[in-house]
């Protein structure tokens, strides 16, 4: 057991550090939060630069534009981009962190070739259409219908909380293909081209005052059968692959933001009792980071560890603690969201962390059952 990076990893770090220095020097200022077209351009431009420099898809296969680098370099990448305050995935979140990895794991060679290089080059933005008004935690109860008609599925239904829905080129879409089967058995996972006729996207305003997600209305949308990932009615299994990425590794990236934020917050924290609280937050963030390192080591060795069941649960709650501390420390400076630093805005954003991608209660249910072997929940 050690935390030493290899000479190769350190060489990779040195190159990356040098590259980041020049690349960040001429980075345009970040666009306003609700200007989605500008955000798309800014985030995908950065992704393209990463791709050109050989830093995109570090853990993706080479034949689809990835680097097939050892997992330790993924960690170095996260450490160095945090340190340098480089942009993070932004609107490429779904494509890079769970749709892409699902296609790597479950897609056909044609699907991989069609999507993976484009995601890495910042040419294809993805969104996620899993949740429905009646199906949140109980995702498998979803009702959006898909009826096979020759080479197409005809899809009708409604999705909600679709992040990046306004600008997505493709969506991860869950549909019911067999309404007679038990609810987990009749689901299919589709790639939804967002420009098909019959799709209406209505942005929803969040507590941040901006439209971070959208509703999707699907009215007899004809989705080609070759957009199906996995077999018909085997979509729940594929969904679990997606969720294992979304809940397991996607949030590691957010840890990066949190470690920056806590460093920025520290100088405001002067009261000794508050500084102790800060220490607890830092200790927990460091531990989540250590758990991530353990997880990376274990997955490289093919060992099934506990990290994937714990990282999101722990991270989301420590972020909320940090947010609460920030509000107390800033006192009446919190009366404007855009006043003192990003802290108030981040506190608002972190309200979602214990809800999105499976609520903390659902995470505890899963941990209790799958890791600890406690009795199963109703399903």
């Amino acid at each position, binding site marked *: *057991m*050690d*935390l*030493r*990076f*290899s000479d190769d*990893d350190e060489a990779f770090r040195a190159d990356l550090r040098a590259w980041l220095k020049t690349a960040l020097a001429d980075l345009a200022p970040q666009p306003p939060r609700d200007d989605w077209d500008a955000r798309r351009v800014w985030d995908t431009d950065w992704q393209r630069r990463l791709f050109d420099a050989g830093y995109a898809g570090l853990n993706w296969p080479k034949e689809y534009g990835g680097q097939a680098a050892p997992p*330790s370099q993924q*960690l170095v990448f996260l450490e160095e981009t945090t340190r340098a305050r480089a942009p993070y995935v932004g609107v490429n979140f779904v494509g890079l962190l769970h749709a892409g990895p699902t296609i790597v794991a479950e897609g056909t060679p044609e699907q991989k070739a069609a999507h993976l290089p484009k995601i890495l080059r910042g040419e294809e933005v993805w969104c996620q259409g899993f949740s429905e008004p009646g199906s949140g935690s109980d995702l498998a109860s979803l009702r959006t219908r898909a009826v096979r008609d020759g080479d197409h599925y005809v899809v009708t239904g409604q999705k909600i909380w679709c992040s990046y829905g306004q600008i997505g080129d493709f969506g991860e879409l869950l549909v019911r293909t067999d309404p007679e089967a038990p609810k987990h058995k009749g689901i299919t996972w589709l790639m939804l081209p967002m420009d098909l006729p019959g799709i209406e996207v209505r942005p929803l305003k969040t507590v941040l005052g901006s439209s971070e997600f959208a509703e999707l209305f699907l009215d007899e949308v004809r989705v080609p059968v070759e957009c199906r990932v996995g077999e018909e009615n085997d979509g729940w299994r594929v969904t679990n692959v997606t969720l294992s990425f979304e809940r397991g590794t996607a949030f590691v990236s957010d840890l990066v933001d949190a470690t920056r934020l*806590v*460093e920025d917050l*520290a*100088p*405001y*924290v*002067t009261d*000794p009792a508050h*500084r*102790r609280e*800060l*220490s*607890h937050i*830092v*200790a*927990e963030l*460091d*531990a*989540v980071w*250590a*758990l991530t*390192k*353990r997880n*990376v*080591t*274990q997955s490289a*060795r093919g*060992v099934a*560890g*506990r990290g994937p069941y*714990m990282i999101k*649960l*722990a991270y989301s709650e420590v972020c909320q603690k940090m947010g609460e501390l920030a509000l107390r420390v800033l006192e009446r400076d919190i009366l404007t969201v855009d006043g003192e630093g990003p802290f108030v805005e981040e506190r608002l954003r972190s309200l979602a962390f214990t809800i999105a991608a499976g609520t903390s*209660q659902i*995470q*505890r*249910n899963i*941990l*209790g059952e799958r*890791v*600890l*072997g*406690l*009795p*199963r*929940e109703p399903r």
Partner: protein
Amino acid sequence: MNFDLTDDQLALRDGIRALVEGRFPMDRVRDGFDRSVHAELADAGVFSLRADGFSWADAAVVFEELGRGLVPGPLVWCFGRDRITSGYDASLAGSDLVEFLGLVDDVVVIDPRRALALVHPADVVAAGEPEGWPLDPLTPVWRTEKQVIAGEPLDLPFADVWDQGALLTAAYCVGMADRLTEMAVAYAQERQQFDRPIGSFQAVKHICADMAVRAELARVATHAAACVLDDPATGSRARALAGAKVLAGEAAILNGRSATQVYGGMGFTWEVDVHLFLKRAWVLETQFGGSDHHADALASTMPGSHA
């Protein structure tokens, strides 16, 4: 980077776990510490790991197992020494109580200037009998008359003794936190109320899930601190050690409280082992710096510190 137990460390862990389960079942543990406990652990090489070429990470793995088994004794102070040793920080309030004083050969005393001395127990003016009602029945304490009769100066850097002690104590706490999780989970599966196992109620299931997360975070934090002691270039020693001691101490205490709750009335009995773990966790919280001490230490590594 290989931040997981190596095959050697897994073998070490399994070996020491088998030793603890075989030689220190709970009915023996309940008899408390004596020379035979020390001798058996010393024979197994527990106290000489460093001298025998093992790393701090290895030592953390071993102490975690001792904590799982709640093996009693001044084990951390005995580490790296041949004789049975206890120790205390004479500058702390309440430091006139010394753990195991009547049962040891040597006592390490840290004076307010952070100089270390090795003292004979009789020289710390021990009253012959231990205090009548120790918090942890397996950690007897003796009251000293406070003034330390000068012992033999120990030429050891305070920071090393303190950090290493904090690390091994944290590792022991991780083992306790882990074992408490297992005990609570086992009880939640077996105990039936309303015609079903209590572990099917989320109010109980979620307590168990939180226990598991706490133990795991404390474990990786402790392993990370051990790795930093082994190779100082891999992180901030002050930050890593303070984080480990804070999280491990809290995990042991909170998991002790949680397990008591999961066990219901049984959890308040002398017979069920949970209280022994919780009491030990409270005792260890006072050794090598408690959570407030280490939180202050960690804070001083963060921007905005005036320390």
